[in-house]
């Protein structure tokens, strides 16, 4: 494969994944509005298109057409840079996620993954940690007390929970002996559901820690203190309007999807079927590939559903409770999990 072919394939994959990702973000918003509506005994959006299915597109058009207000007191360069940074980082991390089994046609690189990196898991963590700047700079450059308080809360929260998040993944990495997301999935796939890291791998504690930390990392309820509307009006994006606000909004949902993808890959066997080889693979390669994508999307969808369910159910934490929970509970538990897993691996 020449360099030109490689570049063409990469551009094609990036284009397709970006479009699918943005559509997924739009429809996750609709999913949330619909589900929260049902949880609160109301309909949610139902007027635009059948079942309100066209609502995200109309919302997008609205964001584009609204007047773009830049307040006078802001520090312009960083004010403009912040939403780009937030959305960019949120979209980049999907680049190392494998969506389906490694299938390639006619000498192409694997189709269902943009980049197969040895250290894929660490790349996701690194890009997420850079994404904090989007929020921090937005809050600071807006020159407003609500934005600044939201940004301070958010960066403190993200730095604290990043630790627990990273440590919770160590058990999985030790079991697979690799940071490569594809290898981590293959290691779990031998006997379907029984060998998934969360069940057969005994990583349920790690999964619990990961889930909590991920909710805090994506600033979602019950840890949505950076944008607690009752205290901070809007949090770090109070001073943003129209498409710039929409970019923060999209970044949040894109991060949710990435978190769901990572949880699926690390704990729930990624694209592999939960029944293992009970259903024998068919003769048709493309059917199998489609099936693998079906399982992956189903698992990620389950995570998004859980996200919305939690948001519709749990009240918000207080800020000191949040910090205590992260440092005094999640981090020691994560270290305990690492020690237990390594002892078990050494004993085996």
């Amino acid at each position: 494969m020449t360099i030109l072919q490689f570049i063409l394939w990469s551009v094609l994959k990036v284009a397709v994944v970006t479009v699918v990702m943005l559509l997924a973000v739009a429809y996750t918003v609709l999913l949330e509005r619909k589900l929260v509506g049902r949880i609160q005994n109301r309909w949610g959006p139902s007027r635009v298109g059948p079942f309100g299915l066209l609502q995200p597109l109309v919302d997008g058009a609205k964001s584009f057409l609204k007047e773009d207000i830049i307040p006078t007191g802001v520090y312009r360069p960083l004010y403009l840079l912040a939403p780009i940074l937030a959305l960019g980082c949120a979209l980049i991390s999907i680049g190392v996620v494998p969506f389906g089994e490694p299938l390639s046609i006619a000498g192409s690189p694997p189709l269902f993954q943009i980049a197969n990196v040895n250290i894929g898991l660490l790349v996701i963590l690194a890009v997420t940690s850079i994404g904090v700047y989007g929020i921090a700079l937005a809050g600071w450059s807006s020159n407003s007390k609500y934005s600044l308080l939201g940004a301070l809360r958010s960066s403190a929260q993200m730095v604290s929970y990043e630790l627990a998040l990273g440590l919770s993944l160590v058990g999985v990495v030790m079991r697979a002996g690799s940071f490569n997301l594809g290898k981590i999935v293959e290691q779990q796939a031998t006997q379907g559901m029984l060998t998934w890291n969360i069940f057969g791998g005994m990583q349920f504690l790690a999964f619990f820690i990961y889930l909590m930390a991920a909710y805090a990392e994506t600033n979602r309820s019950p840890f949505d203190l950076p944008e607690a509307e009752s205290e901070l009006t809007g949090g770090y994006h109070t001073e943003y309007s129209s498409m710039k606000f929409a970019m923060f909004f999209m970044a949040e949902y894109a991060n949710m999807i990435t978190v769901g993808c990572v949880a699926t890959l690390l704990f729930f066997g990624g694209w592999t079927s939960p029944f293992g080889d009970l259903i024998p693979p068919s003769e048709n390669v493309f059917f199998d590939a489609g099936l693998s994508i079906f399982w992956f999307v189903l698992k990620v969808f389950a995570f998004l559903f859980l996200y919305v369910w939690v948001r519709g159910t749990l009240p918000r934490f207080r800020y000191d409770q949040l910090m205590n929970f992260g440092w005094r509970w999640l981090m020691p538990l994560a270290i305990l999990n690492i020690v237990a897993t390594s002892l078990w691996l050494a004993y085996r």
Partner: protein
Amino acid sequence: MHLLFFIVFAGFCLAGAINLLLQSHPINSALSLIVVMVSLAVLYLLLGAEFLAIAQVIVYAGAIMVLFTFVIMLLNASREERTLGSRAALRVGFPSVVAILAIIATVILHTQGLGVARLSDGITSTEELSKVLFTDLLLPFEVTSVLILIAILGAVAMAGHDEKDLHRNSERTGEK
């Protein structure tokens, strides 16, 4: 190809470092430092050290610099002022930096047996790296970890001390 990448990212690195010195606002300087660190990570990657590169991004650009910006935001630090001391530092500092860099450059240029890096060179996997760290370099590695532990304990002790003082202060103001 390797040389091209090197020149581009070394250029970013130098531009970031120079911008860091020229900017008068601390938050711009902090952001330039992030650019320097991320381009350094790319240079590590060009040398085949993937774990080092990503650790550089996660630890330095992602964690330490967030704390830097955090402090700048909290203190609301404004533009730096030029004083007599800062002017003197400028006069003495730049020539001495040039002198030190010149010495380092001559030493490196005179060193024999340096290889040439190519894009096709093998990548040092995390496994190999950890094997070296936990066998050949075990003692320095563990000593470093103890050092970091001491630093953490020191930080906790200082923070705890401050809190006690705060309580005492608030009691005092309460009496008034």
